[in-house]
């Protein structure tokens, strides 16, 4: 019996060793909330996370152009496995399950979540007060910018302004007014806090806030506010048009950071570490010989419709952004035929490696602000000299002749002219869908291209997977 007692006592000793401390989870390569949110460095790292989610990623051009130009008169895609995703977009038969919708939706809400974390956590960090205020303002801009993008694709969406989210949250969609008021307030507020220029190119400025506010008013046909906000931006005198060479050289790598750019998704000077833009690998035709090999040429082919090229006049410098013919690997000259022209707006990056390049993706340029004010003023007053001057600024930069106000008998005729100028100026930058919608031509032009487009196609559907997960979320009409 004593033996049994001995045994049991040994067992109980063993048991004592095993307090619940033994089951504590020790982290090594990741941080827990207790050892973060403390220093100025933590605050910057948090803000960087908002930038990362809001700005560049490798397929940004592919995704933006698919959504915003393949639905228009500019772009088509042939070949490659991605045709499974691009063809239904071009054909206006996108399903609610299309992966790009879910991709955009998820990406924007990740950025919004991180912005909310930054906005809530950074004020509690003991650090330089001015920088702290600015960090919060940068995060607030980025949050509003992501809502701007969501609103453009999907209409009013759930407005989440706290980082205290839970698995069980089933938010409702906000109203159009709530959405617009929120963005208006946010852009206006941060415009007062943010500086007009930042030491580091890529950071948000107050002109970016005013710029997106302009675009928000414009797209919402708030002409007076659009014109006024554009003027406020112009008056700051921070930005001007790129006129130091051929208009297409604005997109040369050497001119990245030119003050015509108001807000971009910046890519690194040295994309070899893996962060870069894959545009050119989609646009290069088969057997194209790159100047700085080795570069990857995808099976997928982004092609410009010939009817779009036809709107350019011969002396337009911006025609230089297109590839019409090339010498292939076997030394033969290949002339790209009908609907097979390529947009080489983003010039080849010598440091680019494989399929990625350091070319920045422009979200907003000064030329857009000028043409936006021109358009808003025309809507308010009809053809007017200031609108013509603003348009001529852009035309002259592109090596074209100035136009005169007498050429435009009506507000509509000038409006159409502005729309065409915008097409030539902003192709391959993903603005065409927005512009056509604003000019009430998105659906009618699609129908004239033979697509089964209907009014409800002005908005994309809320991703089906999101509807499946949240019964409070109402799908857009028609889907």
């Amino acid at each position, binding site marked *: 019996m004593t033996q049994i007692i001995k045994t049991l006592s040994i067992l109980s000793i063993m048991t004592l060793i095993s307090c619940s401390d033994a089951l504590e989870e020790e982290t090594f390569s990741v*941080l827990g909330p207790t050892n973060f949110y403390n220093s100025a460095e933590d605050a910057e790292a948090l*803000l960087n996370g908002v930038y990362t989610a809001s700005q560049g990623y490798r397929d940004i051009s592919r995704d933006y152009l698919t959504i915003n130009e393949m639905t228009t008169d500019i772009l088509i895609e042939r070949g490659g496995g991605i045709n499974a995703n691009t063809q239904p977009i071009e054909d206006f038969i996108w399903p609610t399950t299309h992966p790009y919708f879910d991709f955009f939706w998820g990406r924007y809400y990740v950025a919004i979540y991180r912005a909310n974390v930054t906005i809530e956590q950074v004020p509690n960090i003991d650090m330089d007060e001015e920088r702290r205020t600015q960090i919060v303002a940068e995060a607030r801009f980025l949050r509003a910018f992501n809502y701007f993008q969501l609103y453009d694709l999907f209409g009013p969406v759930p407005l989440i302004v706290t980082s205290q989210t839970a698995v069980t949250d089933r938010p409702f969609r906000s109203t159009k007014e709530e959405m617009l008021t929120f963005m208006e307030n946010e852009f206006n507020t941060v415009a007062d806090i943010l500086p007009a220029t930042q030491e580091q190119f890529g950071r948000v400025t107050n002109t970016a806030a005013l710029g997106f506010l302009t675009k928000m008013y414009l797209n919402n046909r708030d002409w007076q506010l659009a014109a006024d906000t554009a003027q406020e931006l112009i008056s700051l005198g921070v930005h001007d048009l790129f006129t130091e060479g051929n208009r297409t050289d604005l997109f040369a790598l050497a001119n990245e950071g030119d003050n015509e750019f108001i807000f971009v998704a910046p890519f690194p000077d040295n994309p070899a570490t893996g962060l870069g833009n894959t545009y050119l690998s989609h646009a290069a035709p088969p057997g194209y010989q790159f100047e700085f090999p080795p570069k990857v040429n995808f*099976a997928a082919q982004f092609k410009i419709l010939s009817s779009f090229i036809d709107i350019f006049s011969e002396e337009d410098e911006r025609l230089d952004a297109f590839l019409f013919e090339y010498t292939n690997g076997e030394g033969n000259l290949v002339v790209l035929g009908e609907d097979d022209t390529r947009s080489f707006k983003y010039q080849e990056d010598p440091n680019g490696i*494989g399929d990625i390049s350091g070319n920045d993706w422009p979200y907003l340029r000064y030329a857009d602000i000028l043409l936006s004010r021109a358009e808003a003023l025309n809507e308010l007053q009809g053809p007017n000299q200031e609108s013509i001057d603003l348009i001529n600024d852009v035309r002259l930069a592109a090596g074209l002749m100035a136009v005169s106000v007498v050429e435009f008998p009506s507000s509509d005729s000038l409006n159409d002219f502005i729309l065409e100028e915008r097409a030539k100026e902003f192709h391959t930058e993903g603005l065409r869908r927005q512009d056509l919608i604003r000019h009430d031509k998105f659906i009618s032009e699609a129908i004239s291209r033979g697509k089964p487009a209907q009014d409800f196609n002005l908005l994309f559907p809320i991703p089906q997977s999101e509807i499946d997960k949240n019964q409070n979320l109402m799908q857009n009409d028609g889907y």
Partner: protein
Amino acid sequence: MKAHYKFHVLYKAVFLDIKSKLLAVLCCVGCISVTFASPTEIFPKISQEVQQNITGVVKDKAGTPLAGVNVLVKGEMKGTTTDFDGKFSIAFQAGKTLVFYYIGFSTKEVELTENKPLTIVLENDISQLDEIVVIGYGSVKKSDLTGAVTSVSEKDFPKGAQSSLLNVIQGKAAGVQITQQSASPGGGFSVRIRGAGSITAGNEPLYVIDGLPRDPSNAINPGDIESIEILKDASATAIYGSRGANGVVLITTKKGKEGKVKINYSTYYSVQNVAKRLDLLNGTEYANFINDISTDNNQSAIFTQEEISQIGEGTDWWDQVLGTASVINHQVSVSGGSNNTNYYLSLNHFDEEGIILNTGFQRTMARVNINHESKNYKFGINLNTSLVQDQDVPYGDINAAAGVITTALQMDPTLPVFDENGDYSESMIIDLDNPLAQAETISILARTNRTFGNAYFEYSFLDELSAKINLANDRSTGRTDTYISSVTKRGQASNGSAGIASSESWSNLLEFTVNYNDIIAEDHSINAVLGYSYQDFNNRGFGAGSSNFPTDAFLTNNLGAGDQERFTVSSERSKNQLLSYLGRVNYGFKDKYLATFSFRIDGSSRFGIDEKYGYFPSLALAWKLKNESFLANVDFISSLKLRSSYGITGNQEIGNYNSLVLLGTTGDAVFNGQQFESIAPSQLENPDLKWERTGQLNIGLDFGFFNDRINGSIEYYKKKTSDLLLALPIPETSGFGSSLQNIGDVENSGLEFLLETKNFIGDFNWSTSLNLSTLKNEVTNLGELPLILGGSLRFLPESTIIRVGDPINSFYGYNVDGIFQTQDEVNNSAQPDANPGDIRYTDSNGDGIINVDDRVILGDGFPDFFFGITNTFSYKNLSLNLFFQGVLGAERLNYTRIDTENPIELRRNRQSYVLDRWTPENPSTEHPSFLTNDFSRAINSRVVEDGSYFRLREITLSYNFQHLNNKFINDFSIYVTGQNLFTITDYTGFNPDIGGTDYNSYPLSKIYTLGVNINF
């Protein structure tokens, strides 16, 4: 008496029937035997002497006559069996020896001296009936087993080339489904014991090697294994609590036996070739086909007639990368022991070349098992150390990332292997690498050093009571070197890139158990075990990469020579722990009624702060019907036991830190063209995260008839897994796409049937082992979610669905309803934009258009029915073993075929069935015109195929040379084996024996082996 008579008749009838059916088989075996044995041995001359018969009776120790005992004349094919009264009559030949064989009894030999009636008493063969079966934390006699346990011992292992222990149990155990996603040398397996209960958490079983719960993977030599026990029901697995839900595989390695030193050397050499190739277009066919597609699409032809006339066969890219490969295995073991110490030492070297150029797997290892036992204590050590090398080529699927298999299937056959300068040629048109260039210039070499083992000390305080400490450790360090030379397209992009990834893992186990074993008042037997266990698991990794090298000569040996701006570096570390209390009581009453109660309390670091502990009880009851008086006289039943169990087991295979809020690095922000690291929360916290629980009911019947000449078992099980650890898709408005939650239920149920028969006993033996299993898998609850889509591959976002009422990850796509033949058919269809020759899809919701809502379930990867059949024939020293295996009712998504149906580029090569495409002149109803790609409907019933198959997995012919009068060699055997010699299947891919989705999988090979086994 009447009943007895009926059984008697039935018994005779059964055997006569079996005998007559056997005759044909016998003839075949006989023919094979002729080459080895002289004809007289097989067909002995009939004695010319006048025959006199000797008679006798065979009884057991209790005096009960034994029916069906084989009575044979030693050295001859002559024999008889005893009748129902145990009586026999056979020709008397003085000087000859009669041999009495009876299953469950010791064989007895009697030399005939005079013709007097014989009375033979056969002794029960204890070792056969009371085979010991290893269970968790102990072992029991097979007859006392209350749970569902399948035991596969060394004698059942197939003999061909086997790199893994999973090779040797594949098809051998009912309810255990083993598939190999890639047949590459050393390729991994997927093991599903009684289906799959988890969606997000792991479905692989727990492995326990000599008491150490760790997956040995490739680091164990199948030749060192004595037996493998597969624990299936909750009664057997609940003792492993939180890790028991997917079943447990117990591996017991060999021990030395008392006696003189035994030295064994075994070796085999195998040659392997690809078992099946896909029929691709050759150069001329390809050029014509591409031209036809182009011209039919109103585009100009790509190849001129002159070019085509010069192409001929073109390049067969498979010929470039496939070859005949060898496998060599050597094993030396030394074992033996004194009356209180035994030892087993072994060395093994296994070297397999893959059938694809520059792939291979090598293992060099050693094992030491030493045990010592004295009156009061036992101790011992088991140690296994190995070096495993795995050499691979790239295996990717898409475009620039496509590996050797993909490119060999899709590369333009009109492209020569080398260009005019003798360099690897490169396609200017297709975004793919030269397959041969990849195989020859991209090297991926993984080396893993691993040592695991345990040491134990057991002390007996009393006869009934002992305590044991078991300490175990498993540590491995691995390093993978990858070099992509600048010769290939993917290497050009980086101008040569090198990567080194090193990993280190270690696990410590401390276990303390107390064992109590007693028989109280004769009728009550008790065996109890109580214990405590602590195990931790640690991982650490480090990786570095470099590219843009001045030369390819350095490989991975000089990372610093690359471009400093392109250096990459990473490291990580993680740890988790398990702390457990366990116990089990086996109680037996009168050797008729058995009960087993077991429990385990498991604490895991992986769960929420207040949810770390889980409780896993089980109860099993068994009734040995044969030991009841009402069956005592039913002689044809030799054993009969009814078992039933219910218990709860758990699953914690979810990775670490899932319940916590974590902040991690999330990519770089870019300012002024420079990159800046960011940090953000990477998951939502879930303090309520807890165990996934599986409740399992098992009902089993073990039976043995005719002195166990026929024995087996039938099992029914139903497993319900609830509180599923599910990466629950959550509204992305939360900032996260999913969160690990305990949501959902899955059910698996099935029948398992095992039958082992000794059809013939004597000089000629024939035994059969058959196992059959059915399986039904069903998701029964997904919370508020209607469905979860998954299976994204090759730009196609989804190919599988999880929804209530269907099996996990069922294939989800469009049903093909035929080929449009006329414009009229098109006009009257739901696809008005189609052309004649296009695929017609089923408008399954009848809304007049074909869209994503028309997708339906096209099948699932779970088999309805799977089986293995082993037949062993032996005549004296010659034996023939045939092992068939099959699966019915499992579908496979043949993703490889999508690259033929809907290629990424027109200029990719395709399988040659496209030649039979629809054209106005060839109105095919089977294949479309292939003029249009329809990527968005690429997942359809043309690529979800029936994966049923029947395969001769292994056939072995061996000859034993026994009791050699040689000074050194005791006995040796020589054998030839063929593996995968034929497969009957409708599946059009390489191999149906893969789990679920088949995308450019490594092809299966046919393997021919010659082996020798020598005992010194």
